[in-house]
């Protein structure tokens, strides 16, 4: 019997295909994490999100 895939598992699988983008975003936040404000790294995040959306559509 195939195990039921929960939404979070699909989400994790798609997100795992975007580690370069995630690393760029992560570095942007961590570079100065004492002064994080809204949309501080919006450009990096959008690249990450685009990659995630593409990865989640592939299957």
């Amino acid at each position, binding site marked *: 019997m195939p195990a039921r895939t929960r939404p979070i598992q699909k*989400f994790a699988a798609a997100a795992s295909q975007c580690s370069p983008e*995630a690393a760029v*975003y*992560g570095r942007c*936040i*961590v570079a100065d994490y004492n002064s*994080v404000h*809204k*949309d501080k790294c919006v450009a990096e995040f959008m690249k990450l999100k685009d990659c995630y959306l593409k990865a989640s559509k592939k299957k």
Partner: protein
Amino acid sequence: MHWTVSRLQLLRTAKGLLVVWSSTVIRLYHSRAPVHEVFNTRTKWLQKERAASRLEESRTADYLKDEVAIRLCERLLDIKRSYPRVLDVGANSCNVARALTAPNPDSDPNMPESDPLVTKIKHLTAAESSETMLYRDVEEPFNQQINMTREVLASQETLPYGANTFDLVLSSLSLHWINDLPGMLSQINNILKPDCAFMGAMFGGDTLFELRTSLQLAEQERRGGISPHVSPLADTRDCGGLLQRAGFKMVGVDVDDIIVDYPDSFALMQDLQAMGESNAVLGREMGAIQRDVLLAADAIYRELHGNEDGTVPATFRMIYMIGWKESEDQAQPLPRGSGQINLKDVLESK
């Protein structure tokens, strides 16, 4: 200030139910300090019920609770006593009972093999508010090895037992969801017989700090504000004071970090959910965390805390507590300054 609040509450009750305004009622409200509500106990109960009803996932995610129960019960080897009546407060899926029946609790190869701890215990009462969680493993073989009763508590904050009932009270990974921790410890002290011990383990201090900080940074950057996702937890240094305030003597507190590596932060969150340990803080944002925040938090978690091999660590800080109920014939610490031997001499002569 508190007085005004109690009066208002009373008036509100009086309106609906015609409660007689007697001095007894006033004292009932007035004698207790207001309890600061942090957790939604109904949410927590539901989470446990749901977690336990997914049998397989729930059992797989029991690794932490089993490990802590074993580490807690191991400490019983240091006390040369037997216990006619033992209570396990917040038993979860009876992890303590399972640990007590483990074949050789002291796995030191230099020591002779010791009997299972259950030989020291005549009867165990496992009390828990989530019925499904409590009865999850009722068919497992360990149930035959221990004389135990399961009791479903109406509320996880109130213990329905008389004073001086138990020879030992244990609690493993439940106390961190109690709103009124000082009150709970006082109740435990009350139901213990004199000169009997309470031993507890709970999450505290820096538990899940990686998850907490990553979610905070992600929410701050994506949404411009934060909401509580990880419970406020008792600090190690608070626990000693809490035990003393509850009337315990010869108090001991120590900590132990368990670090678990996960493939990603989603796996951690899934496991927390399967343990029934998801967020139940009052005033948290309802509904699931936004996907944008989750995606951002995972990236930050990796960057800020990630291991070199690509996994992410999660720290669980266990606080172990032991306290003894006061008794007249108990060993007492000597008064300060009454020592006859200089420790310096002893240590230097070695």
